[in-house]
């Protein structure tokens, strides 16, 4: 595969899928790739957006040394991620709602009449035409798709003029420049839901919006051939619910429209019917991955007793779910497949998983398939990364605040006659610690805070999730006693031990004596060598 890879995450759910995708990159699933990542929202303050952008920044700092970064192969953090942030700005006078941004009261009497007639035909007066857009499109995707398309076009016009360019427009320009350059060699994967607001609004219009934006930005000198550029997307339907908005909240004009999760299935059904028949979607996408959750989902926000339903903003941070990880794996399929991307009409695909006693049971092969040992490679990498997380967080104490786990591990290795990595700075090791906390867990005083993989596992519970239950221990004592080399369900993948030496000690010996990075791993700096060395030693220990 020589195509250039692009990822776009839209809206709150799209951001969480991107979080899963970033973790797949961290475990090494996108070898030797430089991936351009665009976060797209209406809501610059969205909690999920902020969280994933910080995660990617952290990821990039871990890869960077002396300001440089490059892709590696067959190691942790192998892909290089370039992050761009764009949001449609609805702040400022005259941009607060549809009525104002459309300037319905401007123009001649005839023009005003016609614009009002059209608006009243399609968009409800008093609610859809008047709610505050600052927190997104609030599940009003008919309005949202129109505004998102024109928001991107507005930015492209501003770029073409070259005056008063806003920071987010500049970022969009960089992303568009890369996309334009890749042209028909581009594979673009979009993360978003079909049941919510911003993501659901944007998926159908993005290929056209980017094509038109590229044309406008270049004053017609360049374009994007949508029959050749490969677009793929998730069609993720509802998998969570949240507190129902009350009448008091909806009585204010700004909040006259609040998404109500009990109607998500209706919206999903309407959306899927649209995706199945819309000629624009059919002709601009190559592959659409439908992912849903047909069993009971846990409601969000019950513990918080939120006074209001969260419509967006910094408070919108929801726990992670297995469906988001499956979405990230859909991107893996789209980016790695050798065929099925030259069809003139979109192909709709889905996945089936082992189901028993009303729960899903996930196997490694369920995520990336079993062709060319993909499932085994995934198992090896995820298992190795989870073991490393436990080594840093529990064996070396980083899960507890103020402890430097990676540094402690490096010092331990140095004491065991492996001093090569002591030159990695404290700041650099703290970044690795912090990434592992985000990936697995941390403690706030005595309170256990689950990270991404723990939250994913929790969403599957009581179903099976690749590893044994001990791999997801959560008390200080259990974690302190955890055998980090025995996380798999199958004993054959447990690290070796002997009568005189536990698995962890055996692993450290392997690390000291074997697993030195090879040239084809393309590691350049000391930090990358350290991570590749651990990756290699774990791979040797796991017997895949």
């Amino acid at each position, binding site marked *: 595969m020589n195509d250039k890879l692009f990822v776009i995450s839209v809206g709150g759910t799209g951001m969480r899928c991107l979080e899963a995708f970033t973790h797949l990159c961290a475990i090494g699933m996108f070898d030797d790739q430089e991936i351009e990542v665009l976060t797209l929202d209406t809501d610059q303050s969205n909690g999920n957006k902020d969280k994933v952008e910080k995660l990617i920044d952290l990821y990039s700092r871990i890869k960077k040394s002396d300001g440089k970064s490059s892709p590696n192969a067959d190691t942790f953090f192998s892909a290089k991620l370039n992050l761009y942030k764009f949001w449609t700005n609805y702040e400022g006078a005259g941009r607060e709602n549809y009525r104002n941004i*459309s300037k319905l009261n401007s123009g001649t009497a005839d023009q005003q009449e016609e614009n009002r007639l059209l608006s009243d035909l399609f968009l409800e007066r008093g609610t859809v035409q008047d709610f505050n857009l600052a927190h997104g499109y609030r599940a009003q995707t008919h309005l949202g798709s129109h505004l998102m398309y*024109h928001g991107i076009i507005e930015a492209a016009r501003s770029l073409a003029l070259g005056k008063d360019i806003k920071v987010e427009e500049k970022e969009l320009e960089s992303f568009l420049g890369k996309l334009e350059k890749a042209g028909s060699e581009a594979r673009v994967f979009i993360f978003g839901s079909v049941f919510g607001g911003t993501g659901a609004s944007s998926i159908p219009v993005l290929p056209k919006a980017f094509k038109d934006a590229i044309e406008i930005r270049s004053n017609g000198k360049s374009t994007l051939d949508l029959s050749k550029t490969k677009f793929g997307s998730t069609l993720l339907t509802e998998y969570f619910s949240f507190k129902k908005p009350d009448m008091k909240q909806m009585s204010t004009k700004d909040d006259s429209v609040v998404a109500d999760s009990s109607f998500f*299935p209706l919206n999903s059904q309407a959306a899927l019917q649209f995706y199945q028949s819309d000629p624009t979607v059919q002709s601009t996408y190559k592959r659409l991955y439908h992912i849903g959750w047909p069993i009971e989902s846990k409601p969000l926000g019950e513990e918080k007793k939120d006074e209001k339903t969260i419509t967006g903003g910094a408070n919108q941070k929801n726990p992670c779910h297995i469906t988001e990880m499956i979405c990230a794996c859909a991107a893996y399929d789209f980016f790695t497949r050798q065929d099925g991307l030259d069809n003139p009409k979109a192909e709709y695909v889905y996945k089936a998983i082992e189901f028993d006693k009303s729960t899903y049971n996930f196997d490694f092969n369920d995520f990336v398939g079993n062709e060319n040992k993909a499932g085994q490679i995934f198992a090896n990498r995820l298992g190795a990364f989870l073991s490393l997380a436990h080594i840093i967080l529990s064996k070396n104490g980083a899960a507890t605040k103020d402890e430097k786990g990676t540094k402690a591990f490096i010092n331990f290795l140095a004491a065991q006659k492996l001093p090569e990595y002591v030159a990695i700075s404290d700041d650099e090791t703290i970044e690795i610690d912090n990434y592992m906390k985000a990936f697995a867990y941390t403690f706030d005083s005595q309170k256990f805070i689950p990270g991404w993989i723990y939250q994913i596992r929790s969403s599957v519970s009581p179903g099976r999730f690749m590893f044994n239950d001990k791999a997801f221990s959560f008390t200080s004592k259990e974690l302190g006693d955890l055998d980090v080399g025995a996380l798999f369900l199958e004993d054959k993948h447990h690290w070796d031990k002997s009568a005189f030496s536990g698995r962890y000690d055996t692993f450290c010996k392997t690390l000291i004596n074997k697993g030195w990075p090879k040239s084809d791993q393309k590691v350049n700096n000391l930090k990358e060598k350290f991570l590749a060395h651990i990756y290699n030693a774990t791979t040797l220990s796991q017997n895949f």
Partner: protein
Amino acid sequence: MAEKLIKALVIKVDSKSEPGGIEYKWDSLTSRMPTFTKNIITPAIGVDKEGKSEVNIGAIVSGMPTVFARSNLFLNALNAITDKTAEVDGLLGFYKSLVDEWRGFISCLALNYQDIEVKRIHLAYSDGKKLTETENIYEPKGAFGNVLFERKPLWCDQTLSSNSAKIPFIDVVRYNGQVVGGTSPESFLFTSVSYQLSEKEPFVNFKNRSFTDPLNSDLQPEQLNTLYGYVKFLNNNIERFRLQFEGLSDLLKPRYDNINGNLQDWLKEMETFAQKKGFKIKEQIPEVTKFENPFSILFNHSTELYGCNGVIYNDSREPGVIPFDPKNLLLAEGTELAQIVFWKGRKSECKFSAKSFYLYPAGRNKGRERVF
């Protein structure tokens, strides 16, 4: 060892439509999508047969990501509801209420056409400029046209020559001054997102104040005659309307099989209604002349004929024809018929026997009426 069961990781769907899947692989859903999406399980929202619900379902169903969602929903409704008597809930319940509304809208055209106004709005920016240059890119007229995307050719006048600038349009329909809906090349008509009717007519649902199929009401025999005639007329025009889209790509060509089926069912329902009420249907087609081309093909009915050299045509495209309304040739109101015997001998000897006459009063003479 028990056989391993796999279950599709898809939206909750009726078991008969749930795809089976292939272990570890992404499997195709493309060919099954129409059935699959139709049988998605949604919460009951209690829409009664007249479309009344405790919640504003039209506002809830906002998941269709196009500003033309309202129009698309009518297309989906007409495609999804092929059996009006079937018990349905959720989105299908909503679709059923939309079909009811759609029939009500047609009935309004048939029965109250004199109170209808149609205004064509071209979906282009008022300043005549393109997306790249216009002052306000969010102006609805232009912006809505932009987001038709691939559908744009479908919403244009198909009769324009290939080198003419084709601009999509919508005919917005007002009833007694209120915007009630518009025209669509896919569903012919759709109602607006929020209109409230106060007229006491058989096609108005007094509970939710929207259009409804007047067969739910006490339809008078004359109204039934007119509605029956108009629906039949409309149905007969579908094929001619469809033919104008023949030049479009297969992705865009509209199909009207379900609309046709719906109208035929409606005609049967009218016949049953008449039978129950003891009416005998005498078709009458109302004079509707409010629509412009191409929707005039579907909705307009006029008795206007065309004449040339004594030959009468009903097609304006015949060369040299002059339009005339046969209504104007009818005898004036109050005219009385009288028999005038010109000849008492052999009929063949009377040169007036095969002629018709119109007599003009010429005053009285000696107490007797004189006429020309």
